[in-house]
Each structure stands twice: as C-alpha cells, then as structure tokens.
C-alpha cells in the first residue's frame, strides 16, 4: 500500500506525560515530526494549533481529511527515487 506524507494542523495535548500532538493519539501514523518548532516554554500556544509532518497510509489520510478536528495543508504520495 502506498504511503502518503502530509502536513496537518493539530492541537497540543498536555497531561502528566508531557506535551504531544493530538493527531498521534487519534490516528495510527507511521511517523510524525513537529514542523512548527514551537518553543516548549510557549506550549500551549494560543490558538492551540501546530503543524506536524506525518506519514501514513492512504486510508488513514482519507480519515484525517474527513475529520473536522484537523486541517490537511498539503499531501503527496511518498515516492523514493530509484538509485
């Protein structure tokens, strides 16, 4: 199954385990990395939104796109150059 990468808007979750993006609580992603780099001392920002670059399968991306809690800024299929 093809993998897709996308940048999405998500909110921070803060609890006893620290700070993490809600998207990793709600969806099974292959990987995700913070693309905003909000300084830790300023978390949670106002508004509570940050951009994460995620990699997931197509069905998961479809579900995220249909989820009103998230905004998909862009997405593209992951294609590795042949070497």
């Amino acid at each position, binding site marked *: 199954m093809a993998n897709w990468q996308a940048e999405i808007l998500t909110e921070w979750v803060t609890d006893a385990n*620290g700070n993490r993006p809600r998207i990793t609580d709600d969806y*099974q992603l292959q*990987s*995700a*990395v*913070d693309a905003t780099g909000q300084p*830790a001392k300023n978390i949670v920002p106002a508004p509570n939104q940050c951009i994460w670059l995620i990699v997931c399968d197509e069905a998961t991306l479809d579900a995220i796109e249909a989820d009103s809690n998230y905004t998909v800024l862009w997405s593209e299929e992951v294609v590795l150059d042949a*070497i």
Partner: protein
Amino acid sequence: MTRAKSLALLGIPAAGALGGGGYGITYLINDEFTTDRAAGNVDGTAAEPGPGTRSVIGDSPAVIEISSSTLTRASTGQPFSDGRGIKWTGITRAAGVAMIATVGNAVFGRFGLTRVSSNVIEGEGGWAIGSIRQINGDFVYTPSALSHVAVVLNSSSKNNAMMLVKDNGSWVLCYITKTYVYSVLQPFLQYRGDGSPDSDYLRVAQLPAPFDTDNGIATDVHSGSVSAGATFSHEADTWIEYTVTTRPTAGQTETRFRVQDGSNYWQVTVDSSGNIDLDEVVSGTPTQRGTAAGVVSSGHRVCIVADDTTITVYSNDVQRFSYASASNFKSATAGELETLGTGGAVSNLITMPRTLSGRAATILNAFAAGQS
C-alpha cells in the same frame, strides 16, 4: 594531454600546510586520470600514478573518457544510459581501508566500496551521488557543494563503513552504513542520467590511526551490554548509535543526550510496541518532537544525528524523522542511558563527532591530496 593536478583548485592545502607529509597513508589504488583517453579506450588501462587498474562497466556505446585530468563523459550526443561506470582493482577489507574521490554533484549515480559481480553493483556499501543516500537505504545528507567524498571501512567484525563528505571545508560524518561481508571489495563510480559525471581523482589506501581501528574516531564507546544509568560523552554535534538488544516488555528505554542538567535535555525513547520518540525535555516536562510507530524490533540499531538545530533519528538504517528546531541545549555534550524499561537491554553505545577535527581531519585532507 598530461597536466599536473592543482591542489589549490581542488581546495586542498599543499603538503607543507599539512605538516610536511609522512602521514602513514599506504596507497592500494591511486588514479588521477592523468593521461587523456578517448571513450572506448579506458577499459583495462592502468591507474595513474597507480597502483590499480580500471575496468569499465556497461559503457556501450562508449561515452566514458578521460579528458584534461578528469574522468568525464564524451560529448558524443549519445544518451547516457543507467548503470555504466568504472570499477578498480579489488581490495581486501580491513579497518581503515578507505576510498576517496571527487564526484560531480549534478549527476545522479553511485560510488563506494562494494562487491561488483558480473558488472552489477551489489547493493550495500555505496552511496548515491547528488543527494547522498545509502544504496537500498534512506536519504542521509545533502551537502551544499559536493566535492570530496570518502568511505572508510571498519573491520569485518563490525561489517560497516563510515561515509564522509568534505562540505564547506570540513569533513562531515554522514552515516555509518552496513557493507557487504565479502572480504574483497571493489571501489566503483557508477553513473546514471544525462549529467556529466566528472571526477578528478579516486584513491584507495590503508589509513593510519585513528582510522585503523574500529571506533578509532569515537568520542565514547560502551561495548557490549550497557547498564541503566551509564553516562557517556559526545560532541555537541554528534553521531550516537546503540543497539536495542531487547525491546522492553513495559515502560521504555530512554537515551538522553545534549543534557544540560537533570531536567533539561533531549531523549530518544523506545517502548514495548517498538515506537520510537524524540522528546525535548524542558524543566522536567517532555514535549514530543518526533515519533514513528512500531518500527524498532529487538536487535535493531538506533542512530541519532544531532547537527546544530537539527536532530535526525534512524532505526534499522531507515530515517524515521528529522526535527529542525532543536535549538535548546545544542552545545551540551553529556549523555546518559537513563532507563531500560522492564526487561529491556541496550548494547554497543558509541558516539562519534559529526565533524572531524584534529588528526582525523588532517589524515583525510592528506589522503585527498594524494600525500603519503
């Protein structure tokens, strides 16, 4: 035409500037492409000044030529089909046996030390040119201007090699990659696409210390099993690797680095599901900056590259994520294997400098200059 190499043009200081020679470099192959040879007349010729012999791979119709002391492509108008290149005499692997070359930046191709069987480059042990990647691996480094590249073998017991590039005047350790287990490996340059694969030289040599022993350039080495609480040191810009010998059944392994104090540091964690996370811990509160789900199994190697404000995490030789805003604690040089979780085990924790300095850099500069 025969012309002498200009070290200044190659961006390399003359011998005197490096301390007058006597570096203990023993050449196994040394090719400066001194004599012009037309396309079709390169195969089987001797490396110059030698030792070594060139063997051309799949160059039909012939376009690979030597012109003006450069291995390049003849301007014949022929399409430059994939896979053609040159290999040199096979060499026996040993710690500190290294290949160095200049490669053109605009062409997409491969170079390295690996086995070449029936004119087929066999996977591991090479890089792609352009954006430097492992063959069969993932992207590891994009130099600002690719010029001198080096592959330094470790011993057969480690079965890997250090990939370095001279970028902006400094030797950068890009990655430490798996290599084939074969005892005899061949240096090669292989070209793809329609670019002009210029190369000014290719050399293979047995390098002296610190390269002639495994982990010779390491900042810190914890061989074998590493206990929870073990501390280590690293340079601020660093390569850190360790093996997750056994994944924990509960909790997580926590490897701290760039530790400013007990409440302010970075950590990479691996949990019982094989999830690997990068956390920035400020005043004791962790903030997740990167994560990959279910990718670490027992026996996998985890590699962390901290380079200025970018921290990149690999497992099982695949880049999992790269976080680009790691400005906190970037000058800190302390690390600790804080915990192993329940039933977890970690082994062979090694730190290396991201950018080489001192004698290691001096040796590579001398190697690039063809000095002994």
